[in-house]
């Protein structure tokens, strides 16, 4: 992949893949113009990409009318992060039918999780946070696909959340009344049909006639209270069809048909870029200055934080340090670590957890003292994700922990 060089390009171009390989960077003219205007205003050339990421994130959080523009810029910004995450993860699990392009697209479509989850106050790097989020989104996607692929339809129906099923049915284009009936049918199915053995539940076969009748019976009595229009009584045969349609929709939802990469680009159709651009300039004037102000303290904070964490790592006992290194540096799985250290996976999990807990506690205390932010469970949620990313970077590129070195993942 050709890395993007200048700031304008970084915040206004999108990755184009061809047959699972990097093809080129496609420019989005409106974004380009917006970035040009912004840069013209700062009149400073040495502003880092992370500064702009934080700036757009702040706009995204605070300026409702520029929300989509900011999101577009950040979407452009995280293209590489998502690409490397997809490449790394897809390569590791080539067994199933998940291409790089596929993983990339599924992950980038969930940009909102990155935007919502990132907390700029914590002093961490936006791109690192995006990488961590994309990595875990793709991992989770692959895990789910792996599992769904070996489930029978009947097993799959037992192993899906109501939210996921509803979304699958919506995405399959069903009417809301039909969806309500299907969900009720599915809930009756789950009440009456359970695996008859302790494991091997993924091979669950089709219910027998008697079970179908019981499901139909339950559905027909529940429809009066559970459905806004109770409809007519259904026969087991129809329920069979409905449930298979549910299973099909659930599978299709995890393997959406290929659409063009970067397809979900909200705001593009509304012409809002053109309308809002002059305002962008105005708003950014003030926001720039505030953000700049913050950025200088943020740099100090980031180096402090690194010092605090490195010190906390040194305080850990030797065993914990070894575990962390095996995990983050050598990339061993917990099972592999367990084998190497001749202990149970459970023990590895516990010790890793304890080591991370100590670091999180240090970080939370530091954040309370330095940033005066009360460490609520909610805030710690962000801290913990950021810590995880810090650990990964620390163990893979200890040299990259100084504040402002660009955090590109190396092309492999």
């Amino acid at each position, binding site marked *: 992949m050709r890395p993007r060089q200048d700031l304008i390009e970084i915040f206004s171009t999108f990755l184009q893949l061809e047959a699972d390989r990097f093809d080129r960077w496609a420019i989005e003219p409106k974004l380009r113009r917006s970035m040009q205007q912004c840069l013209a205003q700062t009149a400073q050339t040495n502003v880092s990409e992370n500064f702009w990421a934080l700036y757009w994130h702040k706009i995204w959080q605070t300026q409702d009318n520029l929300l989509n523009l900011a999101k577009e810029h950040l979407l452009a910004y995280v293209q590489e992060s998502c690409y490397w995450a997809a490449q790394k993860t897809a390569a*590791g699990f080539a067994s199933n039918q998940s291409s790089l392009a596929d993983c990339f697209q599924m992950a980038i479509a969930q940009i909102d*999780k990155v935007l*919502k*989850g990132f907390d700029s106050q914590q002093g961490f790097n936006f791109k690192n946070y995006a990488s961590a989020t994309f990595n*875990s989104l793709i*991992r*989770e996607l*692959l*895990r*789910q696909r792996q*599992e*769904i692929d070996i*489930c029978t339809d009947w097993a*799959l129906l*037992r*192993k*899906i*959340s*109501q*939210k*996921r099923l509803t979304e699958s049915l919506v995405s399959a284009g069903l009417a809301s009344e039909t969806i309500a009936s299907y969900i009720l049918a599915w*809930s009756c199915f*789950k*009440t*009456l*049909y*359970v*695996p008859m*053995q*302790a*494991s091997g*539940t*993924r091979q669950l076969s089709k219910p027998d006639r008697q079970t179908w009748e019981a499901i139909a019976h*339950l559905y027909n009595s529940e429809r009066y209270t*559970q459905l806004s229009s109770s409809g007519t009584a259904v026969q087991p045969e129809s329920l069979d069809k409905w449930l298979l349609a549910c299973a099909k929709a659930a599978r299709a939802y995890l393997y959406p048909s290929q659409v063009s990469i970067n397809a979900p680009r909200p705001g593009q159709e509304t012409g809002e870029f053109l309308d809002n651009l002059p305002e962008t300039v105005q708003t950014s004037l003030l926001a720039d200055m505030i953000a700049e102000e913050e950025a200088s303290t943020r740099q100090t904070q980031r180096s402090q934080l690194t010092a605090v964490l490195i010190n906390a790592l040194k305080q850990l006992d030797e065993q914990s340090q070894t575990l962390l290194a095996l*995990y983050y540096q050598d990339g061993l*799985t*917990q*099972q592999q670590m367990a084998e190497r250290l001749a202990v149970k*996976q*459970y023990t590895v*999990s*516990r010790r890793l*957890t304890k080591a*991370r*807990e100590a670091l*999180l*506690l240090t970080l939370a*205390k530091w954040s309370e003292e330095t940033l005066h932010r*009360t*460490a*609520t*469970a*909610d805030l*710690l*949620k962000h*801290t*913990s*994700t950021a810590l*995880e990313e810090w650990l990964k970077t620390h163990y893979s590129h200890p040299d990259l922990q100084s504040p402002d070195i660009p955090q590109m993942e190396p092309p492999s």
Partner: protein
Amino acid sequence: MTFNSALFDPIQVCLDIEPALQTQAWQQSQSFATPSSQWNAYLNQLCLDTVLPWLQDAYERQATPAPSATALPGFWELVNGSAIAVNRTRLVLIPTEAIDVDEIRVPQEWVDIPDWIADYYLAVQVNPDDRWVRINGFTTHWQLKQRPVDWSDRTYPINESDLTADLNALWVARQLHPEATTRARVPAVSPLPLAQAQTLLQRLGDPSVLVPRLAIPVEQWRSLIAHGGWRQRLSDQRRGLPEQQSPLQWLQAGISNLSQQSGWTRLEFQPGLAVARGEATETTPVLAKELTIANHSYELRISAVDRTSNIWRFELQQSGGTIPAGIILRLLTEDLQPFAGNEDTANAPVEQLYIEVSLAPGEGLVWEIEPTPDHYDQEILRF
């Protein structure tokens, strides 16, 4: 086959399920009343038996099932979820077999019944095929209460993106701010008259009522199930177990299995006065239960004063000491109403607290003590 930890978010806790534990959980689940309660009991047992030892090991030795390991299966006949007490903090594990954990649905009972409320709710994915559990994240009672109930299944659904994935965040938050608000206020449970409760117990005790928690109006259900004794009775009845809590039967034929597990033992006592006088008398059988109140051991004793007129004596003693001022022993009718002479209070340190009651045949009593003993669960004793 175990899980491939490379496919999991490293922040989340993933644990192997021990094969022996799986076999045992499956066997135990077969005594539940319906296919879905069997499956529910199975998942909850797998989840509890895997997560609890890990919690004890990684965080808090004192973590115990709440109200007790004996009482929890009684919940699983009726509702999904397992409570754990860690000192004064309560957690509820909500297992799910879903492959995706886009949302977790917390049954309303765990959120809206005052005695069931927990500080934290943990979403736990259970995969019995590959034998692992994963703690997907947690939320607080307060956060759950900011959301609407889904009345179709009476749950509080919460999206995975609103959970905190790292369990460490929970313990760190508790260490730094133990006083932080985790719970929202919920309205008290309105009492249910005895006759109504009996009708409901009879109706819902029939396992052909597939999902009892959704079969009656929500307020009635909440009142019925909030009563520990009725909850246990309903569960037992659906599972075809006989009424277990009869002191008279315990004295005559021995203590039932479940009640033994919940701590009741049968002792033989020589009346103190007779021993002092040197008289040779027969021993008196006494039922006793060990309790822990404010870190001290106590013993609750029940004995028949006069079996023919059904007069019974309840006694509270502290093992090797006196009962400090402020402790109250109280008896209530089955539907939790007070009656004349139903309590004894230690106004100053005393040797023992006791109450003698004369009962109609078949009458039920519930005992309680202030302050509440550890692992207390209301139980109906039938005389």
